Every structure is written in C-alpha cells, then in structure tokens.
C-alpha cells in the first residue's frame, strides 16, 4: 500500500498540472462560450450583491442605532441566517417561482433574474448582520458626539454608513464572494441551461459530472482569479479614496 503512494501522488500532480494547463488554454484561447459564462456569472452576482447591499446596509444600520422590543432576537436571527444553506435558498425560491407556486405567473424560473433573487436572499443576511456589528461599534464610539450635534438616529445611521464605508466595502466583497462561489441555489433556480443560465460554478459542477476533472479545476482557477482581480480593484479604490478623504 505504502509503495503505491508515490504513484498516487504523481498522479495527483499530473492532474494539477493538467488543470493549470487547461486554465491557461481557456484564457489564452479566449473561448466565446467561456466569455459568455464568465460575463453571466459577474452580471448575476454583481446584481445580487448590489441589491443585497441596498437592502442589507440600511437594515444593518437601522438595527444598530435603533432600540426596539425584540431587537436582540432579530440580531440572533440575522446572525443565524448568515449560515443559510444555498441549496435550501434555491429550493425556497424554486417553489416560489415555479408555475405551481405563488409567483409562478411571472414566468421567471430558469432565467438569470431567478438566480439574482436566490443569491440576493442568500447574501442579504450576511451584509445586514456584519454591517450591523460594524455600525454598532462605530455608534458606541461616536454616540456622544453625534448626539451633541443634535443628529437624529436615522441621520446618524446614514452618517455612520458613510464613516465606516471602508469596512462596509469589505463586507460587501464578502457577500460578493459568497454569491459568486455558490452553486446549490443557482443550479436549482437557473437549471444550468446552456447559453442561458450556465455560470462558472454550474459549469464546474457539470464538467466534474462528465469526469473532465482537469477542465473543471481549470475553470475553478479562473473563477478564483476573477474574484482575486475584483478584490484587488476594490483594494486599490479603497487606498486611493483613503488618501483623498483621509
């Protein structure tokens, strides 16, 4: 058995090299299908993160500065929802959008719009819960100051969102990462239809199913590369902005 190990190790190494070669071949060859898949991935996940940020950030800020009955329960619930399994979200959205479901008449099941909805549901709690914490910490720090200026709570919340914007950017990026990386929800509500709802992660799942492991891993490398590029861009913007606004 032990004698077999180096052979297995070598086999795995070959697979990794094959994957790297496949990734490079895909990028260098600039395949139109791949470009379309990558484009759709970005379109869906960026839309989802944008909508989730528009809901999650104000929600997080409101919970951070307001005091109301059931607030603690809401915070615990929101924190727990960060762990929503994508496949459960996919199933819920599927049942909602299915022709037999309450929103069936919209006819948007198996379209990119359905995928945006599923990813939005998935990441809104993450953005809301994490931004609530960040803004609440800032609120404790500036509480006196803001009150002495006579700021009302909701105005204070808006000011705090602006003041903590760099920390919030990281939270939004985490949300994007989660959206771009998940496969369970988009597989169910999108259906992985060739040329219509096929994104990076569902393509990876499909190629794995076909036993083309190097190609699947190659696509994975490209996906990681894309998320890395986006994070680098965000870091650059953040740095430039910090230099400008202090």
């Amino acid at each position, binding site marked *: 058995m032990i004698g077999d190990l180096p052979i297995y190790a070598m086999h795995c190494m070959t697979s990794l090299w094959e994957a790297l070669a496949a990734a490079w071949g895909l990028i260098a060859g600039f395949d139109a299908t791949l470009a379309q898949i990558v484009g759709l991935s970005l379109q869906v996940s960026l839309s989802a993160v944008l909508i989730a940020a528009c809901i999650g950030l104000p929600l997080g800020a409101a919970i951070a500065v307001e005091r109301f009955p059931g607030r603690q329960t809401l915070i615990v619930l929101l924190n727990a929802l960060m762990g929503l399994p994508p496949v459960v979200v996919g199933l819920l959205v599927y049942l909602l959008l*299915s022709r037999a479901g309450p929103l069936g008449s919209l006819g948007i099941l198996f379209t990119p719009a359905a995928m945006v909805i599923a990813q939005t549901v998935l990441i809104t709690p993450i953005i809301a819960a994490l931004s609530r914490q960040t803004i609440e910490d800032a609120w404790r720090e500036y509480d006196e100051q803001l009150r002495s200026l006579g700021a009302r709570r909701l105005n204070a919340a808006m000011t705090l969102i*602006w003041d903590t914007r760099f920390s919030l950017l990281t939270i939004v990026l985490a949300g994007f990462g989660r959206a771009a990386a998940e496969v369970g929800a988009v597989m169910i509500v999108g259906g992985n*239809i060739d040329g219509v709802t096929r994104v990076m992660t569902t393509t990876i799942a499909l190629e794995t*199913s076909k036993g083309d492991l190097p190609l699947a891993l190659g696509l994975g490398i490209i996906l990681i590369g894309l998320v890395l590029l986006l994070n680098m861009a965000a870091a650059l913007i953040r740095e430039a902005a910090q230099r400008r606004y202090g």
Partner: protein
Amino acid sequence: MALKTNAIRGVLLGLAMLGMLAAPASAQQKFITVASTTSTEQSGLFKHLLPVFEKKTGIQVRVVALGTGQALDMGRRGDADVVFVHDKVAEEKFVAEGFGVQRFEVMYNDFVLVGPKADPAKVAGGKDIVDAYKKIAAAGAPFVSRGDKSGTHAAELRLWKAAGVDPSGGKGGWYRETGSGMGPTLNTASGMNAYAFTDRGTWLSFKNRGDLVIVVEGDQRLFNQYGVMLVNPAKHAHVKKDQGQAFIDWVISPEGQKTIAGYKIGADQLFFPNAKR
C-alpha cells in the same frame, strides 16, 4: 450632500443593472423549456441535435437536465413545455395522470455494467445481467447506485428485483447510494473501484474512468428506451403547445431521427432512433 448624491447614484446603478437583466427576457426570442435527463445532456447529444432544430425553426430549446423522476416532476409542476426522458413505466403513469398529452418513442440505447478490471465478483464477459447482480451481491463486492429515482436507478432496481436480491440490506456496506447524477456516481465508482450501472452514452463520454471497464453488456434486459411528451396545456395553460409539439414532431421525423443516428463519439453511435412513424 455627498451622501445623497451617492445614494441616488447607487439606486440608478441598481435600476440600470435590473434593466440589463430584464432585457434578454423581453427579447422576442422564441424558446421552449425541455426537462430532460443527465444522460442526454452529458453525453453531448443535445449539443449535436438542438442547433439543427433551432436553425430550421428559430425556436431555441432550453434544456434543464435532471434525473427522470425529477424531470417528470418538473413537468407536473408546469415548469417545462416538453419532457424527454427514459423510464417507460413512469412516463405512462405521467400521461395516464393527465400531465402529459401523448408519449412518443424516440430512440434507445442500452445500459452497461461497469466495474474494476480486477473484477472481484468474477462477472466480466458475461451476457446475463441478472446473474451478474446475484454474483455481486453474493461476493459483497462494492456497488455504487444512483439512488436518485432517475430512469437509470429505476432500471437498476428492476434488475435487483429480478435477481431476487434486496440491495438495501447492503446499505453502508457493499451497496452505496450516491443520491446524485450519473457522472458523480461514476466518479464515486471510479474512486472506490466499485461496480456501477450506467447508460452507455454517459459512459462513452465519461473521462475519469480510472480502472473501470465495461464488464457486462448485450443482455436484452439492458434495453433503454427514451420517450418524449408534451406537458398537457389543459393542466398548465401557459405551456407552449405549438412550439413544443413542433419540437416533438421534429425529433420523431426522418430528419430528426437521422440527426440522432449521426451523433457519434469516435466510432461509437450513442443513440439508435426508433420512432414509430
């Protein structure tokens, strides 16, 4: 002030992106949704077949590939216009319940039993699939099952019944259910060096075979018939009756049948047209 303009900018950007998403949906592209099986999609048949139909009719065919059980459920819920699957018993039930209009036979291929070259149950080269199942159970040799209510899973279970073996007794031991598609199941079998029951199309296009080879093939009972049905517009009014029927008419037409026969991987033909017309 800066805050306000930023908020406005954010909202505008959001609306613009929603607009981008809505655009493809409102385009005048004619399309139908077909619920089908992983075997037809992953074997590459649809990639070969659908462009010919689309070019001829301008109707785009959107395929959602699932197991047969799930694909039929999709039809029951009205989420597909056409169902294209391979489990005659379940298909006839689907039509009898009024969810499908009429069932048309399209093509067939066959199932094969794959297993490790070492062949611990000594079944290689046999022509009797039921006998092979008995030997595998007797030897307690690892066997990986779909376990997902797919057409292939249903066929596998019928063979266990014919062999007089209840494989659920081997669960957790020699009999492993993956609860997933054909590809993932073959990946598991390849990793475990286990026997697995698969349609020939998926096997031919499957790349991660490891030590697995075909051990039993050619038994009459390994016949695998595919059927196609229009989802009943009487149950679901939004079903695209004319375009869906156009697709069905085309796949069972001489041209469609010839296109199916023309799909090959290397020298191997994957599906054999047998529409009754």
